[in-house]
């Protein structure tokens, strides 16, 4: 049986937030209430572990909206599997950040 990465509660919370549709750093901070000094490094670690993937917004879109481009995050297949395992470990995750939350915002 392959070893599955065990996540801390914070990392699981960030992963759950990304899965719920909070796909950039500030929205995850706002949703989870975690400070910037926690969220961004956590996202980098998750990215290094290939549980999430990031991509920069196209410059043209940012230019149209007259703002700097931002970085978006997305769950990978491995991240989804790990999140499923984490949900079993932290059953309140899904209730803390339901998937509908982001869509309604």
């Amino acid at each position, binding site marked *: 049986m392959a070893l599955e990465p065990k996540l801390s509660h914070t990392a699981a919370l960030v992963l759950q937030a990304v899965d719920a549709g909070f796909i950039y750093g*500030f929205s995850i*901070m*706002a949703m989870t209430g975690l400070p*910037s*000094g*926690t969220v961004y490094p956590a996202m980098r670690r998750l990215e290094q572990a290939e549980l999430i993937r990031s991509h920069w917004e196209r410059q043209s879109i940012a230019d149209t909206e007259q703002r700097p*481009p*931002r*970085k978006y995050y997305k769950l990978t297949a491995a991240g989804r599997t790990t999140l499923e395992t984490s949900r079993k470990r932290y059953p309140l995750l899904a209730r803390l950040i339901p998937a509908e939350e982001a869509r309604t915002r």
Partner: protein
Amino acid sequence: MTPLPEPVLASLCRFLQHCLLRVASLLVPAAQRPDWWREWCGELWHVRQACAPLGSDPLQAESHITSFCLGAFQDAACLRRHGWLNRPRFAPLHGSAPQCLLWLAGLLLLSFLFSILLPGVRAARSFPGAQARPGTILIRDAVANDDSAPTMAFDQVRTWKRDSQRFVDAFAFYRVAAESVVLSSRARGTWQIAQASSNLFAVAGWPLRNILPHHEARGDFPRLVLSERIWLQQFAANPGIVGTVMLVDSRPVRVVGIAPTDAFRLPGNSDAWLLEPDSEISPSGRGYVVAHLTQRGRSEMWGGLVNIASFDSQKLEHDFLGKSFAEQLPAPANIYWFGVFLAFLALPAVASVSLAEYSFSSHQPSWIRRAIRLGFLAAKIVLILLIAYFLSVDLAYWHSSVFSPSGTYVQFVSSFAVCLFAMRWALLDQRQRCPVCLRRVTHPAQVGLVSRTFLSWNGTELICAGGHTLLHIPGLPTSWFSTPRWLYLDTTWDFLFAGSVR
């Protein structure tokens, strides 16, 4: 005090927040800095937009935004901590130029310590080289081919001493014979004792060591001078032996001093010299003559040799040959330099000495880089030369005396061999060092197939662990790819070397 107008306050806060993010970005590792700076700036815009509804209280809004910016410091600290914990252990030193120099310096220190600790080596190292008094010669019969064979009769010396001499101002004679020696009631042996003129060491210009003061020497017994070898081996370099009386051929003699190291140059391999007036020296048998040339005599010398024609007591002419002590035997330093000279001559036979055979496929390194590279090679060579000196002296003299044939031979062979092969290593090592960071290129990989030599190159590819260069060594040199090539890596390779310092 009048509060600041809102636009001024907002501008000040923006400037402060911008500065905070800039400072935080400086704390992030350089390779990741642009990415983090971009992300923080992007997020800051959104944070500011999100806080805009709090516009009723601008101070609270700016406080939220500033706390977001302060969080960037925690991001940077977290990155630094993570990078430190996951750093490759000793990676910056591995295969680097400082590591190489440290190894060489360690070897040098080790060989130097040995040369200090081993007594024989210490004596050899402190030997200052040719120290014979200028104009001191050893005279032998011109017919004899061997310097070490006794060829001179004492009568001849007496004749020379009796007549007025223009070319020589002092003569000394000695003859070596095996004699029994009683050191104490329990210790006895047979030594090579030289019965010598009392002025032997004065003529040679070598002052005795640990000499017994005149008032203690008392004229009661003949005076005996021990060789340094016997003093070290039989008496463990005990200076207390000077002044004691021992029996040589059943005759009591007093030890008055220790012969200097240079006394090795006197042929006959004497263990001790029994200094006696000429009247006490037996005229029978052959011995050796040491003489000192006058200024005029020295002007007759050519290549350390001087021819002497003389008449004996029966008015028969004899030819003699005088050989300068200064030319007799090379000192350890001279042997070493001769070995180094031969090693430099032989080096092209074992390695290519050219350092410019590499073609830099993309660009030439700057002159500073090239100067550093040459400086590194020079430092290696200097360290190697020092190691070779101390190592050769250690090997040669840890159990042999200075000027002993075996010691001289071992020192010559070892200094030559160490220099030759260490220089070969230095050149080969230099060719496998990245021109940018001087690390050794590693991870050899076989590229291409021999059967496709004419379609594409085949050979070995090595990579610099710092991510600067690739070294391509052709397996089968062709007209278009005959020498190894350096290929510079651009920034697109950075992700492979995340932990390295470029």
